[in-house]
C-alpha cells in the first residue's frame, strides 16, 4: 500500500464560521451541542440523511432524544462490541455526528461477551419481544393521545374546586409539557430497542451475498429480504382503495386537480348519500393510516396527512383516472411474494456447495425474522408518535400565542425545548399571580431573529464532513445507518475534481434507464410542481411521497441507500432510481434534461 503524499482530510470544526448575523441564533443551541475544544481531533460528518435542512431550535430535540436512545442501546443495553454511541454537534442549524469507536481488543472482547448475553437473547426471542414492543408502543401512543389540551381558564372550574382536586390548572401545563417530552424521549428508546440488531442481521446476509456474488446489486439483496405488507405501504394502499371506492360510489368526478381538499370534502358532504359514504370510508382510512407525515419525522413542519389532506387528495385524481381506465391498483402481493421466493431460490442454486447453501439459509432466515421490525417501526415512531408530539407542542404554541408570547402558534418551534418550558413556567406564574407575563417582551424579537437565521442557513453550503479521515470505519452503526465507508469519504474528498463532469454517481436503487426533465424539489411544499414525465431530484425521498411516484418517471436523491424506503417504493413502481448521490440537487438545474440509469447508479446531465 502506498501512502498518500499528504494527510487528506476535511475542514476542522474550529475553522467553520457561524454565518454572520446568526451568532445569537447559533447560541440558542445548548452548550452540549456546540463545537468546542477537542472536537478538531475527531471525524464528524453532516447527517444530511436525517437532517437535510437546518434545524429550528425546537426541532433539535429530535437529534437529542434520538442519540440519547441510540447510544444507550449500543453502549449500555446490548453492548455492541466495537462501538459506543454517537455524539452530535450543531452549527448553522446543521447536525454533525461522530461515532465513538471501541478499539482496545481487550475491551472489545469484554463487550463481546456481554453482547452475546444480550443481543443473542433478543434474536432468540425476537417474535415474542417484538409483539411486546407493539403493545408498549400502542400504549405509548394512547398515553400521548390522552394528554389534555393545555388550557388556562380565568377561574379554576368549579367542579375541580368542589372535588377538592387541590391542584390548579397552571400546574397541569407543566405536567403535560413534561409528560409530552418524557413520552417523546421514551419513544426513541423503543425505536432503538431492536433497530441495530435488525440492521445487523440484515447486513450479515448482505455481506454474505456480496462475497458470494461480487456483482450482485444492493437492490437485489434488498428485494430478497423486504417484506410485502409493511405498515409503511399502507397509507398508499389506502389511497388506492379510496380511489376505487370513489369510482364505485360514482363520486369520482368530484376529485379534480388544484381543487383544495376542504372544498372537495364540502362538495361531497352536499352530494347526498354516496358522497357521505365515501367520507366515511375516508375516516376509516385516516385512523390510523393517515398518521404518516410528509417527511421523516425530524421537522415539525412535515405535517401528517391527517393534518393536511392536500397531499393525499392531490394524488387521488390520478389514481381515479387509472381505476377508470380499468387498471387494477391492487399491489400484487402474491406475485411479489412469488418473485421474492424465486430470487431467493435462484441465488441459492448458484452457490457452490451445500455447506454454503446451509449458511445462506441460516442468514436469510434470521434476516426475514428481524425485518418486519426494521420496516415497520417507522410508522409507529417517526410518523404516528412524532405527529402527536409536534401537535401537542403546537397546542402549547397556540396557548402562548393567545397570551402574546408569539404572533402565531408555529413560532413556538423557534424556542428550544428548554426555553419553551421556561416560557410555560412564565405563563403559569403570571396566571397565578395576576401579573402580565414577561414573555411577550422577550420572545417575538428572538423568534424573528431565528427565523431569519434559518433562512440564511438554508442557503449556506456546509461541508459533508469535518476533521481527519479515519483509516478504517469499523463502526457498524455508522456503516449500517448512514452507509459511510472509507470509500465514499474518499469519493467526497475528490468530489470537487469531478465537478465539471456531467455524470453524477450514486447508489443503484431501482434499475431501468430513462430520460426527462429534472424537477428539483427541495422541500415538501414544492411537490405540487411535479408534472407527468418529470424526474424527481430531491435531497431525500420519503415513503409518504409514494403516491407522487405515479407522476414521475424516475427519482434521484442526495441521500439514502438501497434499503431506503424510497428505493423500495421506486422498485415497487418499477421506476429507475439513483439515491445517495451526495449533491444532485445542487449539480442539476431545474428543468435540465437528465438521464437516470438506475441499474448502474449514474445520473447524466444531458444539456
Amino acid at each position, binding site marked *: 500500500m502506498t501512502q498518500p503524499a499528504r494527510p487528506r482530510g476535511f475542514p476542522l470544526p474550529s475553522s467553520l464560521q457561524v454565518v454572520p448575523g446568526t451568532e445569537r441564533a447559533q447560541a440558542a443551541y445548548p452548550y452540549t451541542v456546540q463545537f468546542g475544544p477537542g472536537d478538531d481531533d475527531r471525524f464528524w460528518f453532516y447527517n444530511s440523511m436525517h437532517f437535510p435542512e437546518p434545524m429550528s431550535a425546537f426541532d433539535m430535540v429530535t437529534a437529542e432524544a434520538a442519540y440519547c436512545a441510540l447510544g444507550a442501546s449500543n453502549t449500555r443495553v446490548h453492548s455492541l462490541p466495537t462501538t459506543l454511541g454517537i455524539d452530535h454537534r450543531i452549527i448553522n442549524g446543521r447536525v454533525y455526528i461522530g461515532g465513538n469507536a471501541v478499539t482496545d481488543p481487550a475491551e*472489545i472482547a469484554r463487550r463481546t461477551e456481554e453482547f452475546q448475553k444480550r443481543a443473542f437473547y433478543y434474536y432468540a426471542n425476537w417474535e415474542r419481544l417484538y409483539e411486546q414492543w407493539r403493545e408498549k408502543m400502542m400504549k405509548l401512543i394512547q398515553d400521548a393521545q390522552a394528554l389534555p389540551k393545555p388550557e388556562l381558564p380565568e377561574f379554576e372550574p368549579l367542579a375541580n374546586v368542589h372535588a377538592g382536586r387541590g391542584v390548579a390548572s397552571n400546574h397541569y401545563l407543566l405536567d403535560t409539557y413534561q409528560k409530552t417530552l418524557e413520552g417523546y424521549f421514551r419513544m426513541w428508546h423503543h425505536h432503538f430497542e431492536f433497530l441495530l440488531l435488525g440492521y445487523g442481521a440484515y447486513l*450479515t446476509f448482505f*455481506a454474505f451475498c456480496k462475497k458470494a456474488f461480487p456483482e450482485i446489486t444492493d437492490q437485489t439483496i434488498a428485494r430478497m429480504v423486504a417484506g410485502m405488507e409493511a405498515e409503511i405501504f399502507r397509507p398508499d394502499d389506502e389511497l388506492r382503495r379510496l380511489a376505487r371506492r370513489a369510482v364505485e360510489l360514482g363520486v369520482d368526478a368530484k376529485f379534480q386537480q388544484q381543487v383544495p381538499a376542504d372544498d372537495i370534502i364540502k362538495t361531497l358532504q352536499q352530494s347526498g348519500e354516496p358522497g357521505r359514504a365515501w367520507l366515511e370510508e375516508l375516516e376509516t382510512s385516516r385512523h390510523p393510516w393517515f398518521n404518516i407525515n410528509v417527511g421523516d419525522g425530524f421537522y415539525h413542519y412535515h405535517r401528517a396527512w391527517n393534518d393536511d389532506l392536500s397531499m393525499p387528495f392531490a394524488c387521488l385524481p390520478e389514481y381515479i383516472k387509472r381505476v377508470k381506465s380499468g387498471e387494477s391498483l391492487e399491489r400484487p402481493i402474491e406475485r411479489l411474494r412469488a418473485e421474492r421466493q*424465486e*430470487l431467493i431460490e435462484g*441465488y441459492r442454486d448458484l452457490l457452490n456447495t451445500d455447506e454454503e447453501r*446451509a*449458511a445462506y439459509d441460516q442468514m436469510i432466515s*434470521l434476516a426475514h425474522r428481524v425485518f418486519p421490525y426494521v420496516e415497520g417501526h417507522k410508522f409507529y415512531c417517526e410518523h404516528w408518535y412524532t405527529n402527536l408530539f409536534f401537535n401537542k407542542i403546537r397546542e402549547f404554541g397556540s396557548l402562548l400565542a393567545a397570551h402574546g408570547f408569539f404572533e402565531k402558534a408555529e413560532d413556538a418551534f423557534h424556542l428550544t425545548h428548554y426555553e419553551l418550558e421556561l416560557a410555560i413556567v412564565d405563563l403559569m406564574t403570571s396566571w397565578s399571580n395576576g401579573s402580565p407575563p414577561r414573555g411577550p417582551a422577550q420572545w417575538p424579537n428572538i423568534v424573528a431573529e431565528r427565523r431569519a437565521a434559518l433562512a440564511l442557513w438554508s442557503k449556506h453550503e456546509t461541508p459533508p464532513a469535518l476533521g481527519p479521515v479515519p483509516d478504517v470505519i469499523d463502526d457498524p452503526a455508522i456503516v449500517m445507518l448512514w452507509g459511510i465507508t472509507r470509500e465514499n469519504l474518499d469519493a467526497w474528498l475528490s468530489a470537487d475534481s469531478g465537478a465539471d463532469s456531467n455524470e453524477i454517481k450514486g447508489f443503484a436503487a431501482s434499475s431501468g434507464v430513462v430520460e426527462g426533465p429534472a424537477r428539483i424539489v427541495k422541500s415538501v411544499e414544492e411537490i405540487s410542481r411535479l408534472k407527468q414525465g418529470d424526474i424527481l431530484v430531491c435531497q431525500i425521498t420519503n415513503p409518504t411521497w409514494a403516491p407522487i411516484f405515479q407522476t414521475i418517471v424516475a427519482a434521484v436523491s442526495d441521500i439514502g441507500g438501497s434499503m431506503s424506503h424510497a428505493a423500495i417504493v421506486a422498485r415497487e413502481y418499477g421506476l429507475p432510481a439513483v439515491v445517495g448521490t451526495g449533491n444532485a440537487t445542487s449539480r442539476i438545474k431545474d428543468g435540465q434534461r437528465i438521464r437516470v440509469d438506475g*441499474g448502474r447508479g449514474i445520473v447524466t446531465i444531458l444539456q
Partner: protein
Amino acid sequence: MSSTEVIGWFADIGLQDRPHVGGKGGSLGELQRAGIAVPPGFVVKTGAFERFIQALERKAPVRSVVESLKDVDLSVATTCCAQVRARVEAEELPPDVLDEIALAHAALCGGGAGAQTPVAVRSSATTEDAADASFAGLQDTYLWVTSLSQTLQKVRSCWASLYSVESVTYRRKRGLPEEGVAMAVVVQKMVDARTAGVMFTRSPLTGDRSVVTIEGSWGLGSAVVGGEVTPDRWVLGKITGDISVRDISEKLIQHVPLPTGGTEDVAVADDLRRAPCMSDAELQGLRAIARKVERHYGHPQDIEWAVERQTNEILLLQSRPETVWSSKEAAPVARPAADPLSHVMSIFGGKR
C-alpha cells in the same frame, strides 16, 4: 437421415460421443437435445478421417513421418508439415466416405446444381487436455461455404490443420502418439447473422456466477471472436434480468457473407455504429438461453451465439465449459454455524 460411422446428425449425438464427433460437434448435439436452437447440421466423424488417413498411408506413410519430427530443427518440421498438409488437402476422399458426405450435404442444403444453402465448416477436435482452448484456436472454421465441392475441400482443410507445424510441435513436446490423433468436422447451415457474439454465464472479471456477461457486434460473430471490433457489452443479473452494465461501443466494421462464398469486412453504416446491436428483449432471450444451457451442463459456460438477420431468431453456435474461474479453488464463502446467531458477529464483532 440416420447417422453412421461417417456421419453424425446433431439430433443423434451428445457429449458422450466426443471421441468420434469432437468437442464442438458433441456440444452442438447436446444443445439440440437440451431444446436449444442451433443451426442444423451434421458431423463428419473421426471414422471418416480414419478411413481417409488409411488411404493416404497406403500411398505413403503419414503418421510415422510426423512422429519422427521430435527434436528436429523447426525449419525441418515446417517443411515436413507443409508437405503432409499438401497431401491431405489434395487427396481425394475414399468413394464411400465421399458418397455419405454428399448425401448428408444434399439433405442439409437441398442438393442439385443450383445455388445451395451456405454452410459453415468447422473443425471439432477430440483432444481433452487443459490446453484444449488454445489448441482449438489453431484449428479452423470456414464460413459461407456454398457448394458440395467447396465443402469437401474445407473438410480436408480442417483435417490438414491437424498437421500445422504448431499442432505437430505441440504433440511432439507432450509426446502424444499420432495413432489416436483424429479430427471431426462440423458442417452446419450458415446463419446470416444480423448480430453475433459471445456470452459467459459468469463474470469474467470477478467470477460471479449470478451474472451473465454478453458481448456482441453487428454481422457475423467472427469479428467479435477475432477481436476485430470492440463489441457492445452488457452484464445481466442471471436471476433478476436486471441490466447492470450497458457499454455501447463504436462498432466500425462487420463481417458479412460474400455471395460467392467466404466473408468480407465492410464498414458499419454511420447510424448503426453507436447503436446497441441487441434489444433488451433479445438480451433477455439470451439470458434465458444461458440459464438453460448452464442448467443442462451443471457448469458455467462460454457460449457463441448469433441472431438470424431475417427472422431475428437467436441460435447458439457453440457452448463449452468456462475454464478460467472454474479451475480456481475458492474457499467457501461461509460455513453453517452450530448457533445460527453467531453469523452476526461478522458484522458486530469488528474486522478484522
